[in-house]
């Protein structure tokens, strides 16, 4: 598995410093390293992650705007829980074959937040190897889910990052298991946030499960097509690839819960404490689940809200 080859975040530097340590440069004084980040060149159309404001803006004004405002009629609660300056890791539940939840959360922050900031979305490495997707996904803010990428975004660049800890287990989920959170991986996202001393913002989304219900997964077709999964939805594969974008008009509600201050919990040093990391991951999962149930019980109709 790729996981085993992955470089740990803080491996020791190879060459030892032996002679007069005092005279040698301090390896990474945090504040100074932040100052040394490349300056933004205003002439450029992409940022260093490959994000294109132009393409993103175009999508935002057309497709995303339509879905957010008219199709899903999204409503947002607790936007004040999203940090407006420092780094923040949004942790959300995930559903649907080609889930619209990420785009809706990013749009919610752009529309409702006093400081509309871009949100970077962590995506599977799979997409980087898939022609077409590999061009499009970075342009709209997708970043491969590597711990080093999350760390740089949160710690050095102080950006907002959105993760779905359920990962593929969430998108593979069938309609009958809707709103039941899957396992939260190994808590890597908590570790990343603690190392970066960034706030963790649990986020709940309802509506995505009804917008594209997955009835079943066909394993043999998945293998034949080389896709991550091959779902059967009301529109896919019947309408071809466009079926992936044909969402049902469910009502969306997004709730940002109270952030968890990881610096208070001990920050980077505490990230080594596996027990603490696991407990925190469990707690976040429980809080999201609890709020999802609460939001669902208050909902009168999946379509009208």
């Amino acid at each position, binding site marked *: 598995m790729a996981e085993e080859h992955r470089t740990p975040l803080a491996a020791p530097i190879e*060459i030892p410093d032996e002679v007069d340590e005092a005279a040698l440069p301090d390896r990474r004084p945090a504040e100074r*390293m932040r100052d040394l980040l490349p300056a933004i060149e205003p*002439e450029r159309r992409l940022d260093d992650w490959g994000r294109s404001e132009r393409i993103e803006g175009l999508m935002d004004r057309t497709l995303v705007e339509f879905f957010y405002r008219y199709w899903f009629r999204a409503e947002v609660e607790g936007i004040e829980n999203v940090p407006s300056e420092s780094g923040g890791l949004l942790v959300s539940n995930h559903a649907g074959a080609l889930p619209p939840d990420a785009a809706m959360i990013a749009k919610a922050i752009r529309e409702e937040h006093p400081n509309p900031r871009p949100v970077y979305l962590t995506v599977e490495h799979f997409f980087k190897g898939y022609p077409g997707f590999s061009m499009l996904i970075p342009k709209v803010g997708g970043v*491969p889910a590597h711990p080093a990428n999350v760390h740089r975004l949160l710690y050095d660049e102080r950006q907002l990052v959105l993760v779905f800890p359920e990962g593929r287990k969430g998108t593979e989920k069938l309609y009958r298991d809707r709103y039941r959170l899957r396992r939260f991986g190994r808590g890597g996202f908590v570790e990343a946030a603690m190392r970066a001393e960034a706030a963790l913002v649990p986020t709940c989304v309802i509506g995505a499960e009804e917008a594209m219900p997955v009835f079943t997964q066909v394993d043999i077709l998945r293998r034949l097509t080389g896709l991550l999964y091959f779902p059967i939805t009301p529109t896919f594969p019947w309408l071809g690839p466009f079926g992936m974008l044909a969402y049902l008009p469910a009502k969306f509600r997004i709730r940002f819960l109270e952030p968890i201050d990881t610096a208070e919990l001990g920050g980077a040093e505490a990230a080594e404490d596996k027990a603490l990391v696991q407990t925190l991951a469990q707690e976040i999962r429980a809080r999201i689940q609890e709020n999802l149930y609460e939001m669902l019980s208050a909902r009168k109709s999946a379509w009208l809200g």
Partner: protein
Amino acid sequence: MSVTPRQAGEERREGEAPRDERTRRVLVTGLSTYWGSRLALALESFERIEAIIGVDSNAPNIELERTEFVKVTNQHSLLERIVRAAEIDTVIDTRLVVNSLMASPRDAHENNVIGTMNILAACTGADSPVRKFIFKSSTHYYGSEQDDPAFFTEHMRRPHPPRTGLERDIVDAEESVSEFAERHPHLAVTVLRCANVLGPDVDTAFTRMFRLPMVPMVLGFDPRLQFVHEDDVVHALEHAAFHDTRGIYNVAADGVLSLSEIAGLLGKWPLPVLPPWGTGLATGSLRRLGFRIPDEVLNQLRFGRGVDNRLLKATGFHYGYTTRETALKLGEHLRLAPVMRGAEQTYTYEREVEEFLRWSPHVRRERPSEREGAAADREPLGI
């Protein structure tokens, strides 16, 4: 460009590398390579460098004033004699082959793995005068794979085993350098991992690609790439020579650009000629048309590569160009190239002439400082 020379007595900022005033007698390996000759030329303008000795198996391709060329293959006994006889204090190893089109796989292996070991062996010994070793390496060390981080930092190891012979050789060479550094803690060992270089003079796989009328791409991929200007590489080597920068550093300009963005800056159209599947076969037919893409670059055309360049900047180094400016400069040069063709002079090394110029009592020699317009001891650029 934001190169501001620092004043002599100015306090160094937090984290910056202290100056190293003891670099006086330098051995440059690979003198006939582009980097060896560029570096020797640059070092000649520092008066405090007393001796510059260049070794290689071929004669240098540019005219050098006081660098002494010794024709020697990578035999460590001969190298060691030169090092001892000339009391070399600093060895700068620029000889690594980082483009598989430049040498046959066998020669590249011989040079990169065996050659590195021999040069390291020549720097050791109980009373060796060498106290500093600078190794020019390449970011090919990290490779280019689907699940790579977006920015490699110096402490990251290669996530996957090397795919091509050249990458394996680079990893092996670096391994012997880091082992050498561990075993000889009194030596200041610096490794500079340079990103893909662009510039008007240097010949790399990417400069060849960008000279084509259109920029070839893999269909459906727009990789993030980071480059460094040829001058900045020379300045980084100078910087390492004049500062105590032990450790590993990435040398790459600010900014990671997508290949289509670079094509735009060069004023060329991107052309997705390479199919996403069976890319190897397609490069085979391209080769028949006379254009070769080296294996180590092929994956980069798909997944790209970015590195974190802040550690070198923290030692007080300043880049002259960003990646964007590097691409723009190359674009300017490429537009001018058809006009300038044939204007450049070629140089051939003639041993007798060079020796006459250096050693004959009848030749009038000036110190660099006596020359008009030359600064007595200029600051290393990029500081």
